[in-house]
């Protein structure tokens, strides 16, 4: 069942996403942008907003944001300018943010999201605009001391920030979460942003209201609420579900429609699982935008667009298909791999190249590598077992040194001990069983199991399976397939 038919109303959601661009330096000065440095160590007169300081645009940041806009199928403005957004806050040292107001560098794009399990229909979400601006610093309020002391860290001030605004095209919390995942994946693949929500490099606000069909055919619309303070995609989903239900309750109680009150901002309280109204005063800000006189307008040529487009690489939506075709793996496998991000795809392709068989490599990825990765947490780049080690195990299985389940034990052991495959194999006493030894073992088993011998002899070959478990108990290194084949051969040869 589609999410949009669960309720007697349609949920209408639009998103506003801020992503920090992965540049070495800030948008208007040469300060580096590394996360987590000691407070106020990555600053200069410009990002501190000292008297007389001036901004100079970082073209690399601009090009990176062009890449994002092109990947979001946006139109690119060939002439764009900067504007000042004026407001007072201690983490905004100039008293204004350099942003883009009426002439964003890109507009009118779209990004589609599909659910492979079909929980919702494919949804194309229109992008209203994408613009570039500088980030503010961080305020840290020392609440423990009770002195209401606030501390300001301006390391983040001036970090390039792309703002992506969608049309209200999403119809459920689930869709919103899936779309955000797709957006994040796209930006990570393009190297535009690391989209790390914990470090604040991706931030989401959501606008939501309900469209309620009336008996007379009119569609009643509930007041739009903007939700802030969501720090994970899961929070976005939960907040939207909560807010949908809250608005439905409010609608039933009051019948209040859009326009009957000013747009409300509500903050998401993750631990309480509720949204709470924020003070109205903060919403009626007048930012007094005007063109930034310290910067010159930016022009973009068709050649520059072509150049950026050609250097862009495959977006995830295309990569899913090319990966499936290149390695002859099912679409679902490719989807799972691509959704894990470019580092994992690279891991897979490395493994698949070494193994020479896409499907086998994909199976190991899905069943072993990914499962272990999920259990352990962390990034594939820090994963202790490298593709060559996994390929080594697979190759030994293919050679018949041991079976797949034994291979998995070895894999788990390599993960756990952090040693090489060869060491684990040696340590477990695993060695290929010599043909003579295998024959002796099978003969021993035939002598000990007259019932199985009789069954096999009478045509029930599957009875030979009973010998395999016994063989493994006698010698854990035996290859079950070989045991089975040889035992049957020997039994058939019996008089």
């Amino acid at each position, binding site marked *: 069942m589609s999410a949009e038919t669960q309720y007697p109303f349609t949920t209408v959601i639009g998103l506003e996403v801020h992503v920090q661009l992965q540049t070495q330096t800030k948008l208007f000065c040469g300060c580096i942008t590394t996360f987590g440095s000691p407070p106020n160590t990555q600053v200069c*007169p410009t990002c*501190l*907003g*000292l*008297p*007389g*300081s*001036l*901004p*100079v*645009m970082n073209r690399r940041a601009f090009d990176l944001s062009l890449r994002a806009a092109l990947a979001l199928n946006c139109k690119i403005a060939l002439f764009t300018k900067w504007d*000042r957004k*004026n407001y*007072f806050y*201690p983490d905004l*040292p*100039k*008293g*204004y943010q350099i942003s883009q107001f009426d002439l964003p560098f890109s507009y009118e794009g779209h990004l589609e999201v599909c659910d492979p399990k079909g929980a919702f229909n494919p949804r194309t979400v229109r992008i209203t605009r994408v613009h570039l601006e500088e980030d503010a610093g961080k305020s840290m309020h020392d609440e423990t001391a009770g002195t*209401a002391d*606030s501390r*300001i860290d301006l390391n983040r001030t001036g970090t390039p920030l792309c703002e992506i605004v969608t049309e209200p095209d999403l119809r459920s919390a689930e869709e919103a979460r899936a779309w955000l995942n797709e957006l994040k994946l796209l930006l990570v693949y393009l190297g535009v942003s690391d989209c790390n929500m914990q470090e604040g490099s991706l931030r989401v606000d959501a606008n939501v209201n309900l469209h309620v069909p009336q008996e007379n055919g009119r569609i009643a619309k509930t007041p739009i609420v903007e939700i802030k303070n969501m720090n994970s995609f899961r929070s976005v989903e939960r907040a939207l579900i909560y807010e949908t239900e809250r608005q439905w309750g409010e609608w039933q109680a009051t019948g209040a429609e859009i326009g009957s009150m000013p747009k409300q901002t509500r903050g998401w309280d993750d631990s309480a699982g509720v949204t709470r109204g924020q003070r109205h*005063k903060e919403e009626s800000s*007048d930012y*007094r*935008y*005007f063109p930034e*006189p*310290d*910067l*010159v307008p930016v022009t973009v040529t068709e050649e520059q667009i072509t150049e950026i487009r050609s250097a862009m690489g495959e977006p995830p939506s295309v990569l899913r298909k090319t990966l499936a075709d290149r390695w002859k793996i099912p679409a679902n496998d490719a989807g799972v791999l691509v959704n894990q991000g470019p580092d994992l795809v690279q891991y897979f392709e490395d493994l698949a190249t070494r193994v020479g068989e896409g499907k086998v490599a994909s199976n190991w990825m899905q069943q072993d590598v990914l499962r272990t990765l999920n259990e352990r947490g962390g990034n594939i780049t820090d994963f202790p077992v490298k593709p060559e080690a996994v390929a080594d195990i697979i190759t030994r299985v293919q050679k018949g040194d041991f079976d797949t389940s034994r291979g998995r034990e070895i894999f788990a052991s390599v993960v756990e001990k952090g040693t090489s495959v060869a060491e684990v194999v040696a340590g477990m006493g695993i060695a290929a069983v010599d043909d003579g030894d295998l024959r002796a073992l099978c003969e021993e088993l035939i002598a000990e199991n007259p019932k199985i011998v009789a069954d096999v002899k009478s045509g029930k070959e599957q009875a030979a399976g009973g010998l395999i478990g016994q063989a493994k108990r006698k010698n854990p290194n035996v290859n079950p397939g070989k045991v089975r084949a040889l035992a049957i051969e020997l039994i058939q040869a019996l008089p």
Partner: protein
Amino acid sequence: MTLTNRSAADLASALQNCEISAVECASAFLDRIEVTNSTVNAFLTVNREGALETAEAVDKARAAGKPLGPLAGLPVAVKDVLCTTDQPTTCASKMLKGYQPPYDADVVQRLRAAGTVILGKTNMDEFAMGGSNENSAYGLVRNPWDLERAPGGSSGGSAAAVAADMAPLAIGSDTGGSIRQPAGLCGITGLKPTYGRVSRRGLIAFSSSLDQIGPMARSAKECAMLLQAIAGHDPGDSTSLNIPVPDYFADLEKPLQGLRIGRVASHFSEGLDPEVAEHVEQTFATYEAAGATIHEVELPHETYGVPTYYLIAPSEASSNLARYDGAHYGHRWDGTPSDEKGITDFDSPLVEMYCRSRAEGFGPEVKRRIMLGTYSLSSGYYDAYYAKALRVRRLIRQDFSKAFENVDVIGGPVSATPAFKLGEKTDDPVAMYLVDLYTVGTNLAGIGGISFPCGFTKSGLPVGFQLQGPALSEPLLLRTAHQYQQATDWHLKRTAAFSS
């Protein structure tokens, strides 16, 4: 003849010929400042020690036969709107009392590289907002020609310093006339270069799209010397022009035969002091005698210049001055309850700190302009005020382009009157704003303008003449002024009260 009575050009050659040392030269001016500054109040900071150190280094370098630029060892006064690492930079505001910038302005870097000796920082209208230098938090500046009169502003300290022989050269900044008007009222020469010719990096912003730094000196030739040192592209200022700097001396001596000078009839309508009018007309006659031709031109939108300027400049200022919030540097309210009337109901302790810090740190004219600018940028008013002002600005720019199709430069008065009495206009902001009538157009159009003395009133006050030229016409403006100064000696006159 004492050293301080000599022109910068004269001092430069004396320094080069080792007739005087840079230390002697600097000492003479520093001593002169010590005697005179208590009366004139042209300097906010005097950097005696630093100046003498620099002078000594120049003397050593010269003695060692190192190649030195033409300005090496020449003293210069710098308006306190430019960041200097070795001296406080206050913009004549309580807000920046004692503020020590961590970097030098581009112009200051260039002055240091040229070997000039920075004597100190000159007084000004607070944040360069004003036309009389009465808006300084550190006391007004007196006009050396008449101590009861204003020197003009906002670069009043720089103009008075040159007029009173406290410095042979000075740096000013001009947003709506702040170099040219005080130069005119103090009987010196001042040039506002084309927007972007001189880097604004380290110039504390008043109105970013109008501000421009320029030279002030006794003569056009000395302005050329100083401009040569400070002009040029700066990658750190996005609005700086990446166009080679010409040799400002190359054409200086070329006669004016065939030069077409524009005259705007409306400049001579009511409001223009008759004595000023007479000297200005006389100047046109001098030019004609020198072979130039005078042509009537029209600047139909010039009358809208002042209102346009007083929307654009305060709008940008309201944003530029938002950073002075007491949170990071500069003046902060110390938390003691204020007896000042006004708002007492603050949203939060933070907002109270902002409001009280700004209320205490800024003077009345700065507050007035912040309010004007905030209003004109506010939603609902933007289109009627700021956006409309931008459209008029384009028309004013077009007026100049059109006029320059027929003439090479436009001449006229700098100010409608000679120096006015201190306190005369302080209660009437609009009257004060009108002192910029003839000068704001240059800034709105982003072109160049120069002002120089063209006579004296019967009561002995200097009268200024302004030339405006197209973008990057500095060589022509300097040459036109220099040729006039070759034919006249107004620029050589010294004040009786303050001759050294």
